[in-house]
């Protein structure tokens, strides 16, 4: 946290001293909430002395008792007791004064609908460009403060470009704006930025924090998931300016809309972004409960700014939310067709498949053909045919004669555990031949492959490639001459290996081991691999065969016993199934909401424990808020409609407050996630309500609200600050100057990439794996069994995608972003800290991303007449000052001397990053300029919106 937080209080104090009438909501209630409600508030079970101070009735009954107790001369009898935090003298005075004035009770401000006030009349009317400014200015005039002058044009352009697209302006855009002297030059820029496809990306970034978006499941094993299709939907929704009410309804309940579109279904991924567990041994019911609670907490935070999670274990201590009401809210989300433990193979059910046009048409064609073929087979009554074949006692070709001591060939069937957890397993241990299999390694995202080893004589051989095991497989070995290995009758490539046979027994089974005196022919191998197992199954009584055996026999029958027509149809059908499965594996999907046919029963959970279900509850909303419309469905759709009806006191306020935070660093209500009793009273309550009502009246027009804010004079002020003003208002809550703060993590990197020209403009798609220090994942990961345990860096364009596309592993988030306060995305986050640490300096100075950006920027600059000016214009949208030029040119000169005598250093520096060094550059000069570019990329100004 920045030093000097919570200074809003100083304004409150100054007001308290001067105001004639004590304002209950602003001055009294916060004290009562903080010091008294825990024992005399909404929590019925823990209420002391049957005294309730958060309701009108309760307060009226208690009013006479309060005065004497808060100022009792005996400290021991004074309320509140020390463990609740004693009242300060000014607090006691405020309470006494309020009681003296009659103790008028009012509802907490945010529980009542916003009231739209007329913008106040201000003295300096010429300054105000919008109604926002009149609210801001009226307060400044009251405080005897003057707004700051308008920011310089270049500064303003950089500010608004970073705010609306997350990208700095190009030097050409700066020049164009500087040269445009028309009255609406700024508005034209704003409209251009709002129409940019990068606007949607910028708006999506804070939404990803709220939605706890990530590329892994979190919890224990933390393997991959892919929700990027939903992220694309969010970006597109902002770009298409989907109204916030639809944006809300689709995400909370798109699946419950009549005939939902693909986008409406996809939007519901919002509430599947929570973590999903499948730690071995975890108890499904425990995690089902956690998922639902996470949805409740996220939904309440995002749309209502309520800390509903506090009512999980008991009635809320500060806001009037009963524990039962928490579980009624819970019941809305406890209806999803999901499993408690899931996600071991990517996305967890329920999922929405998102085939492209080609994939869909091929799937349709396959489906049509398989339906035909299945019907054709049905007509032939395959079961009867197979039974008939069996009844006739089919003949099998004779296998080659085995010899226990044979050394020329061997044949065996084996089935390994799909997850081997020893390094190596011994399959066969004979004097003349040892065969074993290794523990396997990851192949592809979800699969694990093993290699087979054998040792005949002194030489060890192994399969060149990994193969997947887990089912019965047949291995045949011809050992005369250069060995040949057949796996399921197909020869595989071998390579010599250095390894010794292990001692551990196999994790799996082996059977039917035979040795031969001569090499086997392909026909003989087929007999051993295919005919012999079928023969063995036939020897088992039909009712004793396992499911696996029955399937194997049916396969054999189709291929060898069925009439030619049936065999051909079966072959085609199997090929189609395989193709469908392969195709299916390549089709992206997203985890979405989908109702169970019969919803789970929801109960109040005593102490919030999944094992302690008590009273059964139906879906419902807290009673202190407006009721659900009687005609509304009692499900998520009804809930979403309730939030977006326009009458809800919180939805619009909470949304516009977050918009404000994006531009000014701090919300009008600083506690953006808590509008309840313990939240901050708004700095400008009338402005907040004006914005909230404007949002609803505009038809929940998100883009309109952004434009409104950035068009205000308040936003366009210079961010320079005098010591006096800083002393008075360190956090700029009064907005007597423009916003100035370090860029969010993603934009620190995006800015460097954009400045260097490396940035990829591609929007959307799967997450990418840019440069990352080795070992960060691997040091804490879970071996190779699961995906996303090893960081395999991407190359090319994927190194330069915007940071919002960086692969987000929850248990090890991207380090350079995390260093700049990016969250781990385990939970819904509505506001980030902005810290200032030495680790950030180390990232900007030494992370290859930034060294490469400096090198590429320098290489371009060298091709221009004034490299230093070029780099400054790119990085900070202005020319360097005389002092800066002198300093950096001196640095350059010294570096040139240094690198002339240190060729190795030049080579090393220019090798950082995969972007090529352009031909024709003086390498010593390039290295020297790179240190200058790196210095510029490290400037406070470069990483700051000012």
């Amino acid at each position, binding site marked *: *946290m920045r*030093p000097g*937080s*919570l*200074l809003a*209080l*100083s304004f409150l104090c100054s007001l308290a001293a001067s105001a004639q009438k004590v304002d209950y909501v602003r001055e009294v209630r916060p004290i009562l909430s*903080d010091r008294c409600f825990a024992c005399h508030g909404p929590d019925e079970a823990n209420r002391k002395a049957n005294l309730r101070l958060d309701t009108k009735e309760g307060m009226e009954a208690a009013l006479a008792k309060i005065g004497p107790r808060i100022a009792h001369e005996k400290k021991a009898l004074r309320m509140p007791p020390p463990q609740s*935090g004693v009242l300060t003298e000014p607090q006691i005075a405020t309470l006494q004064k309020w009681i003296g004035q009659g103790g008028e009770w009012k509802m907490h401000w945010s529980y009542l609908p916003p009231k739209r006030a007329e913008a106040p009349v201000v003295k300096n009317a010429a300054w105000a460009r919008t109604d926002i400014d009149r609210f801001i200015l009226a307060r400044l005039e009251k405080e005897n403060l003057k707004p700051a002058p308008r920011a310089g044009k270049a500064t303003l352009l950089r500010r608004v470009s970073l705010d609306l697209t997350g990208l700095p302006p190009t030097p050409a855009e700066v020049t164009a704006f500087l040269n445009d002297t028309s009255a609406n030059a700024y508005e034209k820029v704003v409209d251009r930025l709002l129409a940019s496809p990068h606007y949607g990306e910028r708006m999506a970034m804070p939404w990803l924090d709220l939605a706890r978006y990530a590329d892994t499941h979190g919890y*224990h*094993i933390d393997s991959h998931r892919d929700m990027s299709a939903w992220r694309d939907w969010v970006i597109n929704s902002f770009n298409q300016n989907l109204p916030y009410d639809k944006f809300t309804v689709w995400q909370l309940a798109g699946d419950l809309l009549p005939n939902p579109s693909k986008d409406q279904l996809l939007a519901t991924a919002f509430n599947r972004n929570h973590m999903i567990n499948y*730690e*071995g*041994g*975890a108890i499904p019911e425990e995690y089902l409960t956690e998922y639902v609670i996470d949805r409740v907490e996220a939904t309440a935070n995002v749309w209502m700014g309520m*800390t509903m*999670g506090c009512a999980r274990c008991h009635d809320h*201590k*500060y806001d009037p939310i009963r524990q039962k009401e928490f579980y009624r809210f819970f019941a809305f989300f406890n209806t999803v067709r999901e499993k408690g*433990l899931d996600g071991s193979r990517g996305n967890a059910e329920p999922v929405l498949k998102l085939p492209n046009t080609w994939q869909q048409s091929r799937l349709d064609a396959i489906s049509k053909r398989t339906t035909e073929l299945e019907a054709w087979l049905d007509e032939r009554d395959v079961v009867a045919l197979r039974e008939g074949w069996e009844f006739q006692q089919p003949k099998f070709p004779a296998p080659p004669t085995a010899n226990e001591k044979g050394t020329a060939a061997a044949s065996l069937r084996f089935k390994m555990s799909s997850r081997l957890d020893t390094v190596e397993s011994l399959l066969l241990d004979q004097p003349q031949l040892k065969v074993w299999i290794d523990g396997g390694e990851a192949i592809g995202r979800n699969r694990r492959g093993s290699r087979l080893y054998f040792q005949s004589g002194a030489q060890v051989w192994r399969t060149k490639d990994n193969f997947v095991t887990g089912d019965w497989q047949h291995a045949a070995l011809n050992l005369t001459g250069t060995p040949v290995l057949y796996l399921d009758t197909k020869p595989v490539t071998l390579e010599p290996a250095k390894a010794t046979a292990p001692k551990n027994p196999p994790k799996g089974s082996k059977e039917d081991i035979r040795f031969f005196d001569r090499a086997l022919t392909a026909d003989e191998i087929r007999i051993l691999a295919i005919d012999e197992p079928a023969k063995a199954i036939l020897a088992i009584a039909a009712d004793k065969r396992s499911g696996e055996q029955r399937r194997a026999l049916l396969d054999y029958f189709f291929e060898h016993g069925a009439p030619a027509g049936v065999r051909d149809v079966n072959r085609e059908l199997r090929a189609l199934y395989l193709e469908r499965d392969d195709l299916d594996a390549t089709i992206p999907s997203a985890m979405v909401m989908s109702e169970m046919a019969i919803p789970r029963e929801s109960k109040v959970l005593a102490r919030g424990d999944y094992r302690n279900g008590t009273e059964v509850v139906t879906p419902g909303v807290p009673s202190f808020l407006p009721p659900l419309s009687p005609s509304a469905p009692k499900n998520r759709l009804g809930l979403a409609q309730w939030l977006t009806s326009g009458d809800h006191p919180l939805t619009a306020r909470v949304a516009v407050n977050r918009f404000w935070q994006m531009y000014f660093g701090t919300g009008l209500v600083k506690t953006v996630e*808590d509008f309840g009793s*313990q939240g901050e009273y708004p700095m400008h309550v009338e402005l907040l309500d004006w914005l909230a009502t404007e949002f609803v009246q505009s038809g929940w027009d998100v883009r309109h609200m952004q434009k409104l804010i950035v068009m205000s004079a308040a936003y366009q002020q210079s961010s*320079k*600050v005098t010591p006096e003003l*800083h002393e008075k208002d360190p956090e700029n809550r009064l907005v007597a100057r423009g916003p*100035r703060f370090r860029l969010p993590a993603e934009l620190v990197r995006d800015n460097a990439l954009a400045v260097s020209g490396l940035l990829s403009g591609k929007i959307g798609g799967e997450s990418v794996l840019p440069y990352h220090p080795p*070992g960060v994942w691997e*040091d804490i*990961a879970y*071996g190779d069994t699961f995906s996303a345990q090893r960081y395999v860096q991407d190359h090319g364009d994927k190194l330069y995608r915007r940071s919002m596309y960086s692969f987000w592993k*929850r*248990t090890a988030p991207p*380090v*350079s972003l995390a260093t700049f306060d990016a969250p*781990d995305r*385990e*939970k819904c986050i509505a506001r980030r*800290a902005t*810290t200032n*640490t*030495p*680790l950030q*300096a*180390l*990232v900007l100075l*030494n*992370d290859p991303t930034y060294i490469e950006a400096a090198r590429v920027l320098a290489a371009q600059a060298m091709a221009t007449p004034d490299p230093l000016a070029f780099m400054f214009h790119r990085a900070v949208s202005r020319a360097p000052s005389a*002092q800066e030029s002198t*300093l950096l040119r001196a*640095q350059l000169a010294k*570096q040139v001397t*240094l690198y002339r005598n240190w060729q190795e250093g030049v*080579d090393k*520096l*220019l*090798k*950082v990053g995969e972007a090529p060094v352009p031909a024709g550059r003086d390498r010593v000069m390039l290295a020297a300029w790179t*240190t200058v570019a790196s210095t510029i990329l490290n400037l*406070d*100004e470069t990483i700051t919106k000012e």
Partner: protein
Amino acid sequence: MDLRKQFELAMTRRALFSRASTGLGLAALNALGLAQASAASGDKSPTGGLPGLPHFAAKAKRVIFLHQSGGPAQQDLFDYKPQLEKHRGIDLPASIRMGQRITGMTSGQATFPVAPSLFKFSQHGQSGTWMSELLPWTSKIVDDITLVKSVNTDAINHDPAITFIQTGSQQPGRPSLGSWVSYGLGSENQSLPAFVVLVSQSSAVNIDQPLFSRLWSSGFLPSNYQGVSFRSSGDPVLFLSDAPGIDRETRRRMLDSLKAINGTHSTEFGDPEIETRITQYEMAYRMQTSVPELMDMSKESAATLDMYGPDARKPGSYASHCLLARRLVERGVRFVQLYKRGWDQHNDLPRDLRRQCEAVDQPSAALVMDLKQRGLLDDTLVVWGGEFGRTVYSQGRLTDTNYGRDHHPRNFAMWFAGGGMKRGVSIGETDDFSYNITQDPVHIHDIQATIMHCLGVNHKKLTYRFQGRDFRLTDVHGNVVEKMLA
């Protein structure tokens, strides 16, 4: 802390900051929990923490938490149960299990055969503490430790259990113990983080359960209080080394340019964040020297290295991390959180537990001995233990020579040394099956409260306002375990 105090604190910091004309302002020091001792007076009093802390005289100034991830089997190591042999192979009596939940890994087992430990126990030291033959080195320090055999937790699987012991909550989102400590107490070193994390690399074939950065996360505390992971390969601190082709002279020159340009900008804009940034760059520059010096073991004597065992010279091993932990606390690092994985013996316990102990036993004991011989043990608290214990019944088949054990949250053992703890005592008793506590239960929240107490912190008073509520490490629970305290 109430709002007003936070407000006053913020004002104090701001005032201090604006007075800091040279060197580092407190706001800057507070970043990363780094703080500067007053160079002029040589004063080593802690800075960067909260005013009013410690709440009372601290016995321990720093903590080394040797977390044994996976769940060491208490009945094979610390909790001697000679009576078990006569129950060998019988199904765990219902009177003992009492319907308590078990994990999904063994809930489907037809029987729960009681598996006595295969390892011999004997008594050691003046205290006569029983120890398993697997821990010959720990057996030598029994008179320096408090052994608690009655620790219990609420969670039954790794993720929630580790998260619980490290953050006080089974679900993610809370600050870790180390973050709370560095938030409350700050640091005594001006160029190292207050909270350092060491993840030891695996030593044997034992499967390592995964870890999560949330275990050293600052949760809702500002992110400068999160643990800084010191890595064993590559840069010990990420991006610590200057980029290839940047030598120290170049780096200094770049920093001088930066300082001058940022300084001018600061004068023009007046935003103190710019001054803070300048000091952070200087601190980074200093860390580039102080961290490599810290990691350089070449000045450790052969005798010291030998004491920590054969792995001590292997970077990233548990043994080298134990030694590094000593070097960290010597330099005033407040909280060293070490993780040693590989204690999850669901099967083949006799073989795998032996291997694990071979890697862990000697370095753990050596750390205590080393701290003691350097006079550091008195004000350094060493904590040793996992996230839960293991079941008395065998997971999978019980044979004369082999068994496995599932997770057991009802009771397990941890030990504590130095920093305000009693020496040579055992606390807590369990039933004949090491399945239920019969005397002096010590809950995870009690452990946390007691660690805080040793640091001079009242666990109920170190709070942080988040989402309208004053959160603390121990939630609304936890009692200081007086019996553990010297």
